[in-house]
């Protein structure tokens, strides 16, 4: 294995491959920044370029584009509330409020540092354990994925602040309902398509996210005219828009978050049925719980922990997804499926023997990830003050720009004009809901997880001949469900326990 790593190192360190890492990262970041265009489009664009290369170089380039796009996707989430990639939706939850409060530079810097740490820590895991992690990829069956989605859904609680529990739940249900539109993935039945051809494939996640986040935000800013005080406050906030300064207290605050989210994100990424989006939600939910009642309340309102957690996790998951791709030949996402196709076209079949037969490909890609993450950081940090200035644009320019990029971004994925009409309808509905003070994030969470939850549950039921016993008979499924139950119940019980503990301590104190 050490020999292989050395071969990989010498391959990765060749000038051409270093150049390709840089090119890939640059192209990926740029494409990722455009709302709507994600890693799939970016890699599909790159494929014709990679034909002439040798396999290691081609894969290094594509990998660079992939994590570059995830890296860049956070920019539009933070600045204009327009997640360019599904994996960066959770980034918008706290990143955008931070930017609105005038901390755009800081938010972008935190996102960059978190992405860098997540990507690098995950690359270390890959280097020491990639071949043996194949077992983990195959450990999860449909029943376990179902349980994992249930656990993910508990992150909704993060948005259920005081007096908002009912609203958050309502919006989650709305998201779950929207996820059922289209051809059902089990029996092929059409549901809620109203006979419309365009609804057969269901509602695209990106479309829903852009409509309810970016478009509705832009429309809201037009609807709510600003008072003089608002303008004054905004001016002050914009004064240090580009500042990237983090206090040492803040660094200390997010360091453990980054550590935990890297591990969680990487492990979720290794599972072929999960991926960066699930990883970011799980990390967000987990950190909200761990932050305690006081700091947990800041989540969704501009918490730096709430920004660091999903940003770390999505990059770690992106690296983790190379485990099933390289060691099993199984793509967990559309993006890795394209990379698999490209690898096979080079005459290389990823699988358990890849790191023995083609060590230069296997290890050089992993090693190139270290370099890639450094390049991304170096590339992005100096640009942040300038990119953050986007927010200083007058509203009359910024709002049309947001509308334009959001619409065009979604259109460029499907080339279907119906999508634009649907987006406008959703955006208007979202504005109405927001005026009623309904949170949008739980709806998206329900939408993403709902589809996968249903699919895995129904698959599990088919396999088990319609018996529900797998819920308690399979230890992994049961464990995850128990954790989910604890996560939900703990906050209700903990004040009680806390009170009784405090009471006991007082007793003890008196006794002593």
């Amino acid at each position, binding site marked *: 294995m050490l020999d292989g790593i050395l071969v990989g190192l010498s391959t990765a360190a060749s000038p051409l491959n270093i150049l390709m890492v840089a090119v890939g990262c640059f192209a990926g970041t740029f494409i990722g920044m455009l709302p709507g265009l994600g890693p799939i489009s970016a890699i599909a664009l790159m494929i014709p370029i990679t034909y002439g290369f040798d396999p290691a170089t081609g894969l290094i380039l594509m990998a660079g584009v992939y994590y570059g796009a995830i890296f860049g996707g956070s920019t539009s989430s933070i600045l204009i509330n327009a997640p360019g990639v599904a994996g960066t939706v959770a980034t918008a939850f706290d990143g955008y409020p931070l930017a609105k409060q005038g901390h755009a530079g800081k938010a972008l810097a935190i996102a960059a540092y978190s992405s860098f740490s997540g990507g690098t820590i995950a690359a270390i895991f890959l280097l020491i354990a990639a071949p043996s992690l194949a077992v983990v990829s195959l450990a999860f069956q449909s029943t376990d994925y179902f349980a994992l989605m249930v656990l993910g859904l508990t992150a909704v609680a993060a948005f259920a602040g005081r007096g908002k529990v009912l609203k958050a739940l309502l919006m989650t249900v709305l998201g779950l309902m929207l996820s059922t539109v289209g051809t059902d993935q089990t029996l*092929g039945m059409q549901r809620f398509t109203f006979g419309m051809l365009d609804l057969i494939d269901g509602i695209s996640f990106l479309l829903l996210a852009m409509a309810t986040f970016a478009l509705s935000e832009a429309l809201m800013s037009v609807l709510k005219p600003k008072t003089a005080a608002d303008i004054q406050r905004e001016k002050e906030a914009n004064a240090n828009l580009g500042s990237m300064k983090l206090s040492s207290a803040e660094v200390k605050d997010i360091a453990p978050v980054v550590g935990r989210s890297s591990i969680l994100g990487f492990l979720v990424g290794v599972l072929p049925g999960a991926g960066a989006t699930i990883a970011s939600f799980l990390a967000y939910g987990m950190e909200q719980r761990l932050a305690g009642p006081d700091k947990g309340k800041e989540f969704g309102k501009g918490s730096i922990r709430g920004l660091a957690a999903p940003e770390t996790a999505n990059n770690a998951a992106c690296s983790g997804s190379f485990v099933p791709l390289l060691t099993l030949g199984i793509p967990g996402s559309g993006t890795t499926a394209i990379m698999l196709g490209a690898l096979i076209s080079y005459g290389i079949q990823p699988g358990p023997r890849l790191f023995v037969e083609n060590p230069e490909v296997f290890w050089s890609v992993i090693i190139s990830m270290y370099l890639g993450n450094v390049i991304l950081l170096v590339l992005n940090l100096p640009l942040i003050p300038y990119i953050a200035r986007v927010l200083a644009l007058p509203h009359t320019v910024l709002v049309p720009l947001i509308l334009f990029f959001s619409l065009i971004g979604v259109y460029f994925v499907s080339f279907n004009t119906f999508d634009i009409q649907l987006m406008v309808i959703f955006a208007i509905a979202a504005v109405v809901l927001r005026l009623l003070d309904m949170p949008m994030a739980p709806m998206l969470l329900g939408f993403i997880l709902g589809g996968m939850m249903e699919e895995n549950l129904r698959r599990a039921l*088919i396999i088990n001949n319609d018996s529900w016993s797998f819920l308690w008979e399979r230890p992994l499924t049961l464990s995850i469900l128990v954790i989910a139950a604890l996560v939900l119940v703990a906050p209700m019980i903990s004040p009680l326990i806390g009170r009784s503990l405090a009471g006991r301590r007082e007793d003890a104190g008196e006794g002593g």
Partner: protein
Amino acid sequence: MKTISRRGLVAVATALGLSLGASAHAADIDSIHFLIPGGAGGGWDGTARGTGEALTKAGIVGQASYENMSGGGGGKAIAHLIEIADKADDTLMVNSTPIVIRSLQKVFPQSFRDLTPVAGTIGDYAALVVGKDSQIQDFAGLAEAFKSDPTKVSIGGGSVAGSMDHIVAAMIMKSAGGTPTDVKYVPYDAGGKAMAGLLSGEIMALSTGFGEAIDLAKQDQVRILCVTAPKRLDIAADVPTCDEAGAPGAEFVNWRGFFGPPGLSAEKREAYQAAFAKMYDTPEWEAVRTRNGWVDIYNPGDDFTAFLEKQEQEIGGLMKELGFL
């Protein structure tokens, strides 16, 4: 204003195409516009772009352009091609077996009859596979397990129930003397996830494309029980056909091919067919074909239409039997 600029563009494009064509040698066809009913990076996308690449590089076609139009399981693009028929004789739409299945399912109201079938160009056979550690050693073993207790034999696939992978599994089991409606089909939303399901041990067997199966078989991850080809394939001579393995007559090919708009002139249609026929012998096509692991199945004109009719009948009958129609 709009028409002028568009006309200008066409003029520029034509000039460019002509000059390109002239610099190499005169192309047989000036240009082809490929309509792709799915998004970038999918199977249809790869087929159209790969074919276009070979055709242009070999100088058979002057230039190729591509348009992705996803939606409605391909129905959007079909409707579009019919709508623009009278000004689209340079447009070819790529499609495959699902056009037959989805039209039977009434996903879209049209069928291949509403278009002009030009040629089937490539194909992939289907295969049944099990994990390398599976207790099932060969197809006979699977058929036996299925006949003794079908509820214990879960067969997965990377598409919804009632679609290609399911139909193939049911067809093989029927040929082997089992009841096709007893097949416990487990759908996954993508081939990769179905393969992960097989390797994780949650399903017993997987119905998938042979091209995908052979890659994993080479890595000793799966064992191919049988392939739905009429005779054994050179690249995997030790894999029996389903016919010889105990499912007599179980043959199936997932073809990919091209369709013109309705009312395409016979002259134009023949020109396209001649272009495809010429393409197969070029090194440019050979490069594209091996890169993608495609199998040449040239099936032009009326033969193609007859093949489609036969496939529609076979699949339709099986789908009725399975209760999907």
